[in-house]
């Protein structure tokens, strides 16, 4: 047991080192980290110093700070990497170097902790400020001693690294721009070496096409700007400062901000500013005999991000709320998830009735839903003939909706109630008591007014708590109502008849001919809608929260054990440890949704993720549903690389999800359930790939998923393991 823990800790710790390296380029890829680690060793001494610093800082943060996942992600390590490498470059091996490596590791760590506390709360990264401060501190000291190897000298010496010599010919072949770009990349690790640069560039490309593109773009704009002034004006070689543009461009263009045309334009716009900061800061620091290093990147990026954070309306430029492993993922997730999961963060509002009703007047309606009262709905029930009444409609009781129960659209406290207004005869109106009999409900900041109720039918009193779906009254014809109907609106204040609020409805079913479709948002005029009848058995099938683990096995991928876990933010996921795959999911009682997939795709979990991307927990009616996948799950290949490159500006690839539920027969609680879902990929509207899934469940437990792809097919079968509560 102890051994396992030690092993795990070691594994995590190695990861933290590798991720510290890849974090330099905002990456979480261990492979990229290993590559950068190797590149740093092209100058062995500085490479070793970097590694030592990184280990020390990661150890310190591992034991001093109680936030392991952050340590593992390299959050604290990358500044140490820089500091160590710089020390190795500036100092020869000796006692002084050892002392300074130890001391500056500690300083980096302390500054990180301090800066984190100052900046994280404002949603800002500390970037490489800790490194800068540490290095300046050390350099100020070294000015007093003879130990300083010297800044200018370092380049000519260390560029002649062992491998570098073999490839020095490469530089001659490459056009000037490419050479400068590669040199700038390598300069991030205090090298001026084309080959190192090339390695880094390749690593960057594998890690993220978008980041590569932005780094090149930022650099190119700066290069053009520099050439435009003929370089002479600045009297510093471009290679010494070029990396600032690369880092700023990646940070501001695609890492902290969701990449788009706008972020690209901002990358270009920030170039002249960066030149200004570079040269004025080097002038300023020159009084202290200090180099400016990446000060410009840090300052400009932080200022820009601060501006975005403070701005109430960010226009088209969006800060990435959820920063994923790569800018591609961040972009794809932001594009899809924002729409898909918006309902999870707000109060869900259901339709205030049972059964199928028609929207007689919707938002901006033709009769009364105008101006301040535009965001309201009027509902009625239609009969077989399309009329709202039976017989001749001369009596209130002829109207199908008259006297039908009205339910609470959300859990609420009853704010106020009126139930004494007489019902109008059909065709008559009562403008004096406009709202008639009503119930005004409140949940937090949200109010809902439901009115024109039947006289004396209100079943709740002010101050009472009502639950969603509870009957609160009956539909009537009181107040400003010519014919019986139900008026429903959301507002922000407790005043009857106040300004309406545009607030989306939670998922509901809309009838389209014989079909029933899942929708959410704003039912339009003449939509025939109903609440989703929730199937408890389907809820149970997809209620993985109660499970300990699921064994999934198929002929294709063998047997996998998925653990049901929750992360620190309370998000649940299925974790297939042996394959390193994770699939996050939510079950809000109406739908089951997979949120995200991460890791190995050659696994049952990946196919299960595709098959159950979104499942409506309803089996009483026949329904169909569509959804969109984030492009993170696109098929890898040339097309995917092209799509990644162009994704911030243009999406030509679509990944759609379709689901449908079988026959029209009413259900109570079926023992066996079958669902059919489909995953389709298309490029420029042409289908290129599709998978069909037949999901079946027995006795409220998922039993199998049959995956059909063209001629190939395989079956994943499941065995669930429940929690056994032991009392010790």
């Amino acid at each position, binding site marked *: 047991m102890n051994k396992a823990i030690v092993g795990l800790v070691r594994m995590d710790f190695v990861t933290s080192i590798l991720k510290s390296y890849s974090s330099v380029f905002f990456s979480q890829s261990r492979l990229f980290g290993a590559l950068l680690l190797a590149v740093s060793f092209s100058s062995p001494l500085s490479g070793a110093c970097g590694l030592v610093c990184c280990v020390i800082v990661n150890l310190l943060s591992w034991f001093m700070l109680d936030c392991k996942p952050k340590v593992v992600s390299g959050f604290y390590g990358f500044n140490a990497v820089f500091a160590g490498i710089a020390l190795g470059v500036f100092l020869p091996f000796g006692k002084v170097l050892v002392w300074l490596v130890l001391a500056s590791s500690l300083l980096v760590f302390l500054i990180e902790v301090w800066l984190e506390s100052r900046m994280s709360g404002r949603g800002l990264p500390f970037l490489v400020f800790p490194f800068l401060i540490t290095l300046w501190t050390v350099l100020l000291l070294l000015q007093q001693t003879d130990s300083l190897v010297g800044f200018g000298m370092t380049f000519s010496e260390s560029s002649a690294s062992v491998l570098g010599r073999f490839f020095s010919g490469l530089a001659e072949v490459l056009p000037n721009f490419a050479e400068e770009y590669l040199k700038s990349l390598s300069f991030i690790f205090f090298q001026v070496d084309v080959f190192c640069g090339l390695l880094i560039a390749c690593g960057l490309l594998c890690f993220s096409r978008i980041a590569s593109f932005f780094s090149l773009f930022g650099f190119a704009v700066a290069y053009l700007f520099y050439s435009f002034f003929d370089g002479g004006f600045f009297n510093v070689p471009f290679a010494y400062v070029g990396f600032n543009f690369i880092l700023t461009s990646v940070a501001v263009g695609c890492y902290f901000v969701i990449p788009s045309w706008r972020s690209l334009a901002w990358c270009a716009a920030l170039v002249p500013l960066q030149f200004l900061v570079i040269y004025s800061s080097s002038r300023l620091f020159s009084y202290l005999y200090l180099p400016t290093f990446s000060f410009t990147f840090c300052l400009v990026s932080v200022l820009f991000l601060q501006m975005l954070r403070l701005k109430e309306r960010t226009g088209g430029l969006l800060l990435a709320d959820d920063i994923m492993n790569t800018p591609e993922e961040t972009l794809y997730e932001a594009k899809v998830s924002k729409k898909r999961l918006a309902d999870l963060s707000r109060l869900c509002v259901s339709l205030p009735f049972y*059964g199928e*009703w028609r929207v007689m007047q919707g938002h901006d309606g033709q009769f009364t839903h105008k101006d301040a009262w535009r965001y309201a709905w009027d509902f009625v029930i239609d009969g*077989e003939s399309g009329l709202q009444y039976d017989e001749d409609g001369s009596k209130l009781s002829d109207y199908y909706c008259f006297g039908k*129960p009205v339910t609470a659209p959300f859990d609420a406290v009853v704010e106020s109630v009126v139930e004494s207004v007489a019902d109008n005869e059909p065709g008559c109106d009562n403008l004096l008591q406009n709202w008639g009999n009503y119930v005004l409900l409140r949940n937090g900041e949200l109010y809902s007014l439901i009115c024109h109720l039947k006289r004396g039918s209100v079943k709740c009193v002010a101050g009472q708590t009502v*639950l969603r779906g*509870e*009957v609160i009254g009956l539909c009537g014809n009181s107040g400003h109502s010519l014919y019986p109907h139900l008026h429903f609106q959301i507002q922000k204040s407790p005043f009857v008849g106040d300004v309406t609020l545009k607030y989306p409805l939670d998922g509901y079913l809309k009838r389209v001919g014989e079909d029933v479709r899942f929708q959410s948002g704003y039912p339009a005029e003449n939509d025939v809608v109903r609440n989703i009848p929730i199937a408890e058995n389907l809820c149970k099938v997809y209620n993985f929260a109660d499970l300990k683990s699921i064994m999934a096995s198929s002929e294709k991928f063998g047997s996998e054990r998925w653990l049901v876990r929750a992360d620190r933010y309370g998000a649940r996921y299925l974790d297939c440890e042996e394959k390193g795959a994770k699939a996050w999911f939510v079950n809000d009682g109406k739908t089951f949704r997979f949120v995200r997939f991460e890791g190995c795709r050659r696994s049952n979990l990946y196919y299960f993720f595709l098959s159950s991307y979104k499942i409506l927990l309803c089996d009483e009616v026949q329904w169909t549903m569509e959804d969109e996948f984030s492009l993170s799950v696109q098929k890898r290949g040339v097309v995917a690389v092209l799509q990644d490159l162009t994704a911030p500006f243009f999406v030509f690839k679509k990944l759609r999800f379709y689901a449908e539920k079988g026959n029209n*027969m009413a*259900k*109570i609680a079926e023992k066996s359930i079958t669902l059919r879902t489909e995953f389709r990929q298309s490029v420029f509207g042409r289908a290129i790939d599709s998978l069909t899934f037949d999901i079946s469940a027995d006795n409220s437990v998922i039993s199998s998923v049959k995956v059909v792809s063209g001629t190939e097919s395989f079956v994943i079968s499941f065995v669930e393991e429940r929690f056994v509560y032991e009392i010790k």
Partner: protein
Amino acid sequence: MIKPINATMPGKSGTDAYISPMLDIDGVSVHSLAERFGTPLFVVSEKQLRRNIRMAKRAFSTRLPKVVFAWSYKTNYLDAVCRAFHQEGSWAEVVSGFEYDKALSNGVPGDHIVFNGPSKNREDLEKALKNSSLIHIDNLDELYMLVELAGELQCRPQVAVRVNLNAGTLPVWDRFGFNLENGQALDAVSKIMSFGCMDLRGLHCHIGTFILSSKAYGIAAQKLADFACDIRRLFGVAVEYIDMGGGFASKNTLKASYLVGADICPSMDDYAEEIADAFHKAPFGKGEFPALLLETGRALVDDAGFLIASVLTNKRSAQGGRYTVMDAGVNLLFTSFWYNHKISPAQLYSQHFENTTLYGPLCMNIDVVREQVSLPLLNKGDLLVVHNVGAYNMTQWMQFITLRPNIVMIEENGGTKLIREAEKFDDVTRLERL
């Protein structure tokens, strides 16, 4: 049942002031139907069937979160009729092995069949268990048999307990199921729980037939809902559905009724209101609100059925009263024993009406369709339409003296389709052995 017939004097409610001829059914001429398919002829209106089930569904589903209709097979188990209901989402409610097979052959999934009735034999139950149908237990012997079968077949029976209770109507039906008030029902439930080999899915009651007071359903629903809550409290099991049975009145007129049925029978909305109200008042737990299952048959199909008959002859009684004999009698109209069926002539007629006794063709004195009905003067060969015959007649009819006639359905699109052929000589004699 057998009463002296006296058709000479009008009753105290007087005779109908006028009746209108029924020239067509859903736009199809009655005479053309008679020509094509002969008389007597049963006609089923698909349009009316679907209209009825949709209206009923609307009445209940706009009041309760989950409502399921199960088509009562015994009311009318013609495949065409059953399938129309299944297409509208109805389950099947059967009371015998024969009906069970019929439901299966109509494509109803096993778990959408409700198996009711007091006489389920071993083979029937085995079949129902294998298809995981819902079995409504009627008596303890059945319960014990299920326990035995569950062991033999290694399956968990999905059961409901049929409960009888006093809903304020008379007579109290206490012959089916277990009595609620005296504790039999609770006893049955606790036996099910202690056997532990079956799943209690629901509760069922059927308070009677042609119930003219919707309030009775409110009382029954409240009693069952309370019983469900008791079971939840005592055994920790929340039933998934409450089956309120059937018994809703159709538009027919009972023999004892002073006014015509269409005027006094509660509407579907009245029944729905009472049941929904009782359900909403019951203290069900969160997520445990049971589905409502309904087995209403008569109210959904009665007014979709018509019988076309032709006049065989007119006669005078000894007292001088008028007798009309037509070619359809109680062999086809079993329900005429308790209903005063509405009768319309199918052709235009003169203004002269006369109280008439309407006889069927059987050589039996009891073959009376209406003891007294005001009809215009009719000639031999004239057609009459008997209304509201959709329920029970096409299942309870007799092959007695004559053979059973054609049944046609007038489809929603106006087409006419033969859905059951008239019996031929062979059909009856084929089974005989000498």
